[in-house]
């Protein structure tokens, strides 16, 4: 999967649109490309495309859509693992990579966050 292909998934378009709408600014082209590449690498790690990643976390119930809590915990742990893989000793770089993925999930309606660096 290329970054161009990643950008065409509905959940990725949703992410980029919601991100620019929320922050009143679109990510610069280079920054966006970097984030798409990080998401592509994350998809490789997870063995799922972006739409499948998001769909895997939701379930339909008689009272509406719910999040699979256990699956979200698994996904959060995988993001932490991804951070470590990318970081190679640079904690900030790893965090930036993890946050690109977290931002993708957040703007698709999956509430999660990171442990602050302090």
């Amino acid at each position, binding site marked *: 999967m290329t970054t161009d292909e990643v950008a065409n998934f509905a959940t990725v378009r949703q992410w980029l649109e919601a991100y620019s709408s929320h*922050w009143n600014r679109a990510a610069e082209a280079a920054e966006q490309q970097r984030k798409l590449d990080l998401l592509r690498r994350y998809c490789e790690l997870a063995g799922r495309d972006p739409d499948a990643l998001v769909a895997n976390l939701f379930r339909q119930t008689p009272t509406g859509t719910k999040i699979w809590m256990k699956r*979200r915990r698994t996904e959060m742990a995988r993001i932490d693992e991804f951070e470590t893989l990318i970081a190679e000793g640079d904690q900030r770089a790893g*965090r930036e990579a993890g*946050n690109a993925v977290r*931002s993708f999930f957040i703007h698709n309606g999956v509430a999660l*966050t990171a*442990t*602050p660096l302090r």
Partner: protein
Amino acid sequence: MQFKQLIGSRRSIRYFQPYRAVEREKIQTILEAARIASQAVNSNWAKAIVVNRDDLSEEDRTALKTPTTTAQLDLAPTWIFWYGDTTAPSVGQTTLKQLVDVGALNPSHGWSHAYVDNIIWTQVLTPIMSDPGTLAVVTAVEAGIAICQALLMAVDLGLGTGINAFNGAKASEVLGVPAHLIPLWVQLLGYPAESPDAGGQRPRQPFEELYFEGRYGKTFERDKNVVKQLESEGMLQPQAPQPWRKDEVRALARMFGLPE
């Protein structure tokens, strides 16, 4: 801070200076404020457990979080777990008679020891205690009044504060909480990393849609002069979002390595 300005300045703070501890005397002052809040039957419905974030193990800290409170729990150095005590009315017979004795509940209003023993205890408090639904509502309301005073006191002391959901079941395990206490909120305390006005006063439903006069649906008319006065006294403040707020949040997110 003047009282009206204090009410107007309270915000739910979500970004704290993680390295700056809250002075113990300030924590006590907050608890003292809660203790003297208005409380039905003059019993203390609110119970609290103060926890220093850094005294908890990593495992316990993680267990207490919810998906959207992770960041602020990690940033705030002091957590106050607030509980509603469902056994509070069980001392009502004694505490109400104390109020009679100290001249708070008086014969001029029909109060006596006999009324407490024969009517209030048997016809009011005992039925409340045997109805879990009513008991939960009363407990939550009464504890909420105390928590409100704790929040306002924290603001008066120059702290950032806010109430958040927490994992009640895990907290019971970690903090050794007995079953008769209902988990309500965790109040976070710390020095704000965000601007104290946190981007402005939060949008609320219009006054006219909330308050009525005489009967439901007849709006309590809002006097513009009163509004103007409250603005000048700092109770009504510029509404969020301030133009710089998203830039501030973005800068904070980057500083703490949080997602955008």
